[in-house]
């Protein structure tokens, strides 16, 4: 052990203490070896160190006595001194006996372990403490039937299997004293933890969700079953087709099998709201079966790849408007070939395409410069100032979305772009360009935007309250904004809101000031004059409470047309407004009240 090889690892406090009193694994193991015989009693084994030391000498004599006695046949029950001992049923008795045997076997096993221990003494120290416990506990208790003097009342009593050690030791307690000390001498030792049988282990408990099949899914299955016979469905108008497309996409059930339902050789417009489960082959088939498409919109079109684009180059010659959400597999070469074969595009809207490069944009400029009206390069990873220079070439641009780039564009680039294309823009989204400052507002937006309806500028930490206020006071008063999203700009506050509402309060339909933490109650109250408001998001505006909301929607004036109100993170809104404080108004949905989910 440590002494032998001169290496001492970390030791527990108990080990250290025992070592200092001269108790080592070797001495303990020797002692165990000398009392190798199995112990018939099955009392709870617990360490009785000090008792061992004093009674060690008597042990052998005691054991001799024990084995010579009549108690070998486990007559412990009969030797119980307390007359009111509860009679055990036969079954319980058998159980007790079995337990005693098991315990004895365990002890025996532990003894063997001790031997092992002596042999390979290089075991680590931690094992020692555990073993010492069993070694002590093993044969320390006097044999059942012998006499002992109670440690407390000093009366002589007969040792039974229920006899308990005094705590603190040394010695044992007679039954009345053991009971008086508050412990239940009859308490059965904690049942040994049952080892799981392998069969039990294999049986995995599933949380089985027994969801009842909805009628929608049943109908979709029926559609899939008859998809080869589209005529069987009868004639359904294009309006219905769109509704059906939405219903099918709702639970991602649009598949290669049922997608042909929406195909038509004559239609010019196709929208698929969730194309995740379509294979590349299905996309190619889509091109072949809808040769006259001019407008194509595919949401969640992840599987779309280069081969599909190559096929579309031939099969969809008339395409002028393409909107894709998530075409991340399409490589640069495929984009180039697509833009080359589809010149004079009018709308090119893509979101999340990390491979759309400057060369692709150059190609778009080259082939569609004079016609492009809508451009979205949202969440395009390669967005940079050079992109902006190229975008400035699109003279007819009305819709521009270059939000959420990987790296923000600069003030100068953005100002130049807005000088070039700002005049016709009705929709502008500059969200997430974190480097943009007030300069863009004063020199880019204010002088150039004349017909803007829809402005989104979220996540712009550099713009200030005063800058935004100045922007809205200098914007052309004749064209009010319809939709404004300036959420997640915690620097903005009351002056910005006042200026915004003064400028376009009368026309505003959608407003998001989510995260304007410092806007005041007075400022928020002004929103009630925006009579056309349909949706309003005032999440995380700290001043919003029941009274503020009541001013908007409680009375007959205020935002009468409001349909959706979001108050996430407004802890003081409890849904108590309107008549009788019930917080209900026909046609209004309120989201985010902390104490309830949907009103």
């Amino acid at each position, binding site marked *: 052990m440590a002494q032998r090889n001169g290496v001492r690892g970390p030791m527990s406090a108990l080990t250290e203490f025992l070592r200092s009193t001269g108790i080592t694994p070797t001495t303990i193991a020797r002692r165990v070896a000398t009392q190798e015989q199995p112990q018939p009693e099955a009392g709870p084994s617990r360490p009785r160190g000090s008792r061992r030391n004093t009674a060690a000498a008597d042990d052998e004599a005691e054991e001799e006595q024990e084995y010579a006695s009549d108690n070998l046949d486990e007559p412990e029950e009969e030797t119980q001194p307390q007359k009111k001992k509860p009679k055990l049923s036969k079954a319980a008795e058998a159980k007790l006996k079995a337990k005693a045997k098991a315990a004895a076997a365990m002890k025996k096993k532990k003894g063997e372990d001790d031997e092992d221990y002596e042999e390979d003494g290089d075991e680590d120290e931690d094992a020692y403490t555990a073993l010492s416990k069993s070694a002590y506990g093993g044969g320390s208790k006097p044999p059942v039937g012998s006499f002992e003097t109670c440690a407390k009342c000093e009366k002589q009593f007969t040792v039974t299997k229920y006899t308990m050690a005094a705590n603190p030791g040394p010695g044992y307690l007679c039954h009345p004293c053991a009971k008086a000390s508050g412990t239940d001498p009859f308490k059965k030792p904690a049942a040994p933890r049952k080892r799981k049988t392998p069969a039990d282990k294999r049986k995995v408990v599933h949380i089985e969700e*027994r969801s*009842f*099949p*909805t*009628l*929608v899914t*049943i*109908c*979709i*299955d*029926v*559609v899939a*079953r*008859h998809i080869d*016979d589209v005529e*069987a*469905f*009868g004639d*359904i108008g294009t309006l*219905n087709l769109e*509704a*059906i497309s*939405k*219903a*099918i996409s*709702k639970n991602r059930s649009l598949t290669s099998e049922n997608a042909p339902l929406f195909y038509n050789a004559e239609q010019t417009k196709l929208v698929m709201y969730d194309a995740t489960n379509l294979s590349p082959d299905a996309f190619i088939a889509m091109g072949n079966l809808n040769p006259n498409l001019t407008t194509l919109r595919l949401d969640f079109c992840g599987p779309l790849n280069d081969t599909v684009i190559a096929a579309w180059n031939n099969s969809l010659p008339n395409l002028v408007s393409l909107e894709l959400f998530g075409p991340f597999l399409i490589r640069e070469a495929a984009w180039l070939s697509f833009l080359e074969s589809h010149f004079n595009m009018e709308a090119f809207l893509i979101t999340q395409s990390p491979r759309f490069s400057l060369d692709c944009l150059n190609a778009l400029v080259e082939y569609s410069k004079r016609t492009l009206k809508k451009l979205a390069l949202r969440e395009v990873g390669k967005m940079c100032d050079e992109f902006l220079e190229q975008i400035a070439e699109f003279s007819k641009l009305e819709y521009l979305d270059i939000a959420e780039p990987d790296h923000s564009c600069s003030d100068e680039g953005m100002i130049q772009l807005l000088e070039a294309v700002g005049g016709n823009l009705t929709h502008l989204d500059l969200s997430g360009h974190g480097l943009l400052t007030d300069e863009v507002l004063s020199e880019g937006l204010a002088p150039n935007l004349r017909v803007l309806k829809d402005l989104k500028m979220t996540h712009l930490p550099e713009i200030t309250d005063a800058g935004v206020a100045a922007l809205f006071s200098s914007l052309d008063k004749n064209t009010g904004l319809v939709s404004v999203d300036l959420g997640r700009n915690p620097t903005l506050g009351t002056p910005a809101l006042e200026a915004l509402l003064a400028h376009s309060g009368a026309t505003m339909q959608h407003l998001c000031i989510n995260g304007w933490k410092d806007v005041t109650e007075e400022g928020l109250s002004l929103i009630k004059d925006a009579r056309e408001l349909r949706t309003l998001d005032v999440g995380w505006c700290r001043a919003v409470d029941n009274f503020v909301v009541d001013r908007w929607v409680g009375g007959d004036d205020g935002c009468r047309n409001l349909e959706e109100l979001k108050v996430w993170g407004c802890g003081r809104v409890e849904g108590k407004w309107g008549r009788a404080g019930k917080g209900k108004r026909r046609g209004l949905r309120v989201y985010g009240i902390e104490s309830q989910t949907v009103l």
Partner: protein
Amino acid sequence: MADVDMAQNSGTTAETDNDWVRVMSDDGYSFLVRRSVANASETMRDMLDTAGNYAEAIARTCPVSQRAVIVEKLLEYMSFKAYYEKAGPKEEVPVQEFMERIPPEIVLELLLAADYQNM
């Protein structure tokens, strides 16, 4: 008027929602079903929810803007659902059989109606 009795399909109905409600189709047919069956459709349940104080809830009448043949199929599914949702986990839900009872001619209309009824 074709009054369809769905009572035998909702034998396990609790006493509280045992009253009858009327479901009206676009073309004037009306169907009487137990409330528990009507509750299988979330939209219909909201319409009939007395807490909402809607005219439908007071009159216990749900207009459904669909042809009678569609409404009938909707109600067939609703009683199917009301019955089998209460059935034990051991019992097999005969979805295939139900599917075969839907003629493809009406399936798209039914799909839209089901989407509206939120079921």
